[in-house]
């Protein structure tokens, strides 16, 4: 089941713009490794779900996956062969607005780095942007 909000105050949103880099949510907080976005994008709920499935299969129970983003933004579209006008379209999908630097997913409790790299590689194929692997910054 793809992620979506349980309840929203306003059904439809304007598109908005993505400016600048992430100033929060850009460090590995829960796991040992993170997958960091390098480009601005909208990541759809379906992309998050397919990444999750890909990682779960690659990890095969050897670690825990954390999803750090949530699709809060409703994206509308008009049906095909519809004339312009007559109001805003219906909600087509939900998306997470991602700035460069945002940590999208984390993996913890997996001691084999090759398994983590494999899982992140599988996930990166499900995402529309360039990403990089981030390791937890240990306390000095």
């Amino acid at each position: 089941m793809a992620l979506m909000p349980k309840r929203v105050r306003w059904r439809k949103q304007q598109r908005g713009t993505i400016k600048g880099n992430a100033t929060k949510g850009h460090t590995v907080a829960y796991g040992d490794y993170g997958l960091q976005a390098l480009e601005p994008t909208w990541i759809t709920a379906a992309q998050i779900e397919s990444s999750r499935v890909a990682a779960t299969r690659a990890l095969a129970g050897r670690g825990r996956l954390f999803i750090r983003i949530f699709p809060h933004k409703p994206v509308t579209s008009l049906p095909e062969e519809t004339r312009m006008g007559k109001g805003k379209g219906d909600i087509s999908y939900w998306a997470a607005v991602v700035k460069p630097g945002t940590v999208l997913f984390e993996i913890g409790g997996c001691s084999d780095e090759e398994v983590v790299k494999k899982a992140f590689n599988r996930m990166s194929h499900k995402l529309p942007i360039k990403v990089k692997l981030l390791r937890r910054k240990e306390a000095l």
Partner: protein
Amino acid sequence: MKIIDLPVEPRDKLGSANSRRLRLAGHIPCILYGGKKEVVPLATTVDAFGLVLKERTALVRLQLDEKAQTALVRDLRWDTFGDYIQHVDFVRVEMTDEVRVNTPIRYLGTPKGAALGGKTQQAKSDLELLARVDSIPTEITIDISDMDIGDSIHVSDLPLPENCKPARATNEVLVQVVEPKLNIDPTEKDDEAEEPPPTE
């Protein structure tokens, strides 16, 4: 924990624009506070601070105006992509002070229970300690190679150095080897579900 001599110089031009210029010139803006003394803005070089990161020590001796001040790295601010350091906070300490520090935990070996199908769950990667400055450990190493399925290591089992104790009273689990659960992925089940037989 090893003490490193860190050359610093006072920083008189404050503000984000001046800090940005400082970073472009290969410096790191820092600040020194604590000890009920005045707050001093400082700057150090990337190369000099690189040694602190390499040695993985938080204890430094700041060389400021021919006077040495012992200090602990309290906070490090990295840039968005985790490539370079933007700012460092130092707090003044004396060698006999008791301070609260986060010490990384390193797990050595593979549990023997893992070969029998057990799953290792590492609950914590660092531990908050109350330690005297001269006794702060660089890291805590735990040998987990003897752990069997069902075994766990708690905070109370740790061999901590003298003048060091856990900051929290709770006896948390650090690592445990548990029996594997049947891993049933609901999505996978859906994919492989057979089509219903045709009705006549």
